[in-house]
């Protein structure tokens, strides 16, 4: 059920430079939300900007005193909408619609295999909510066997490390400038982890940076971040034959699948895969059929 409400801003605080966390009082939306879904926020009170802005649901927490579920979003200030959002104070009301879209579908996993969550930049936002759910669904024996890879430009921009650790996840960090932990892209870090436990490593590819990780082998990947990163992850998932879901970011208009504005090229569904030409595709809507997609169906540009 999709709901439109005026929700009260409970807090809106900077966590690191340019990154903010906003907590909203919207129990009706929070109760129905699933990891990977988003809310659609009217940032301005007028016509500028006209369109709502989509934010993935970052965290659901239960406020003890009033026993209400609160919802958090994590955002980076980068445009007109987010610049308005930064100014919102506790107590102000915000027009939101949600929960929208199709979120992550949890893969059923044998107890010897572990999921890996890969987040780049602000793309880490929906993965906290996902990790909460994964942790909740795990059997006591396998509890807390979730690997999280966080990608950031520098040490200063590492997001949500504490949240994941509190959930009992094993966290690895990659920074572009090497200011903390692994130096390089988070996709390189992912490959370092996938390769040793697999015979599917690309020939001639040497692994120079040994990464110690207690959780191997990896069973599935859930990722969110900038599109070039997701494309690389999709390639790795295909190479190592690991099921993988990614959450895409796309500019939207209606947010509910009506306008066909935010489409993505995907492989057409069966029944005729043999008759299909390589150029054949269909469009799916990122806002309604996604934002989470299996990487196998995406046709990358």
């Amino acid at each position, binding site marked *: *059920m*999709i*709901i*439109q409400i005026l929700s009260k801003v409970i807090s809106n605080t900077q966590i690191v430079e340019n990154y903010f966390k906003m907590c909203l009082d919207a129990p009706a939306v929070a109760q129905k939300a699933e990891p990977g879904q988003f809310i*659609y926020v*009217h940032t301005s009170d007028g*016509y*500028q*900007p*006209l*369109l*709502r802005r989509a934010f993935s649901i970052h965290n659901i927490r239960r406020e003890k005193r009033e026993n209400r579920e609160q919802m958090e979003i994590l955002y980076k200030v980068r445009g007109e909408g987010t610049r308005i959002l930064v100014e919102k104070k506790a107590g102000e009301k915000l*027009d939101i*619609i949600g929960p929208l879209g199709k979120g992550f579908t949890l893969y059923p996993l044998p107890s010897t295999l572990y999921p890996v969550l890969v987040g780049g930049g602000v793309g880490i936002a929906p993965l906290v909510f996902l990790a909460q759910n994964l942790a909740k669904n795990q059997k006591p024996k396998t509890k807390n066997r979730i690997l999280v890879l966080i990608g950031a430009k520098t040490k200063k921009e590492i997001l949500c490390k504490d949240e994941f650790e509190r959930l009992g996840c094993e966290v690895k960090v990659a920074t572009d400038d090497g200011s903390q932990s692994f130096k390089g892209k988070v996709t390189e870090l992912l490959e370092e982890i996938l390769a040793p436990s697999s015979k599917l490593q690309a020939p001639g590819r040497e692994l120079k940076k040994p990464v110690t990780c207690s959780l191997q082998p990896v069973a599935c990947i859930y990722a969110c971040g900038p599109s070039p990163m997701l494309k690389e992850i999709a390639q790795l998932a295909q190479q190592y034959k690991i099921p993988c879901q990614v959450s895409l970011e796309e*500019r*939207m*208009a*209606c*947010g*509910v*699948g*009506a*306008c*066909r*504005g*935010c*489409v*993505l090229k995907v492989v057409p569904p069966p029944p005729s895969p043999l008759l299909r030409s390589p150029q054949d595709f*269909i*469009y799916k809507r990122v806002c*309604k059929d996604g934002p989470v997609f299996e990487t196998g169906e995406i046709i990358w540009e």
Partner: protein
Amino acid sequence: MAEMNPVKKVRRDIKHPWGKSAPLDNEYLTRQAECFSNGVKISLETKLGKIKLRNPVMVASGTFGYAEEFAELVDLKKLGAIVTKTITLNPRKGNLPPRIVETPCGILNAIGLENPGVEDFIQEKLLFLKKIGVPIIVSIGGDKIEEFVELTRRLSKEEGISGLELNISCPNVQQATSHKPQATSQKLIAQDEDATYELVKAVRENTNLTLIAKLSPNVTDIVTIAKSAVKGGSDALSLINTFSAMAIDIETRKPKLGNIIGGLSGPAIKPLALKTVWEVAQQIDIPIIGMGGRLFEKK
């Protein structure tokens, strides 16, 4: 309700201080609603050709999908009528993304009439629409008169459709066969008075359903085109489709839309749309459905 949905309002003859044919405005509706809440009964009933509407608030084609997308968010029964996203004879994939660009107080779109085609529409979408209980107006589009006629015949056989809106004014359609971005704007039917007359007449001869021609503002004199549509047998007019427009990314120096050009909608065009409605209303006597820049606002 999402911001991109302009609300149409049917013009009725209201005694306004500024003249008989002034279009309905928000203020007027608000005043009516106030009377309503004070226990004064006012009928908002309106007629469009043979269609009886409980109130004159409609949704513009393309902004509301096939209504099912909004079913959880909006009480669909409260609408006066629902106009579907445009249907063509064969399925259309639509244009290359990006298809939507935000502009100051507006939206530029070049969806390219993505739709499942008339047969899938009847089998999948119409079933839901029929059950809502408000008049359903199906927007139809095509490249040639023959396509409009065939669509009209096919849809006239179905129950649950009250009227057809003739989309002869979509600024974003390319030749159906090519799937490359293409900037050459073909002439629209609604940009030619003879073509408009021929098309409306041909459709009129094939159906008893209420017909509404949707006109383009991208013309020198919209009144001439409106008169052709009336002469052809249109029961009402939808004014207006989007304004042909474009946006460029100054960093990449490339057009922002995959289709290069698109159609502008939103509050930015409301004064332009209003003037068109006023202009045409001076000259013709059939109802006008005004649209462009109208938003639902929840208070």
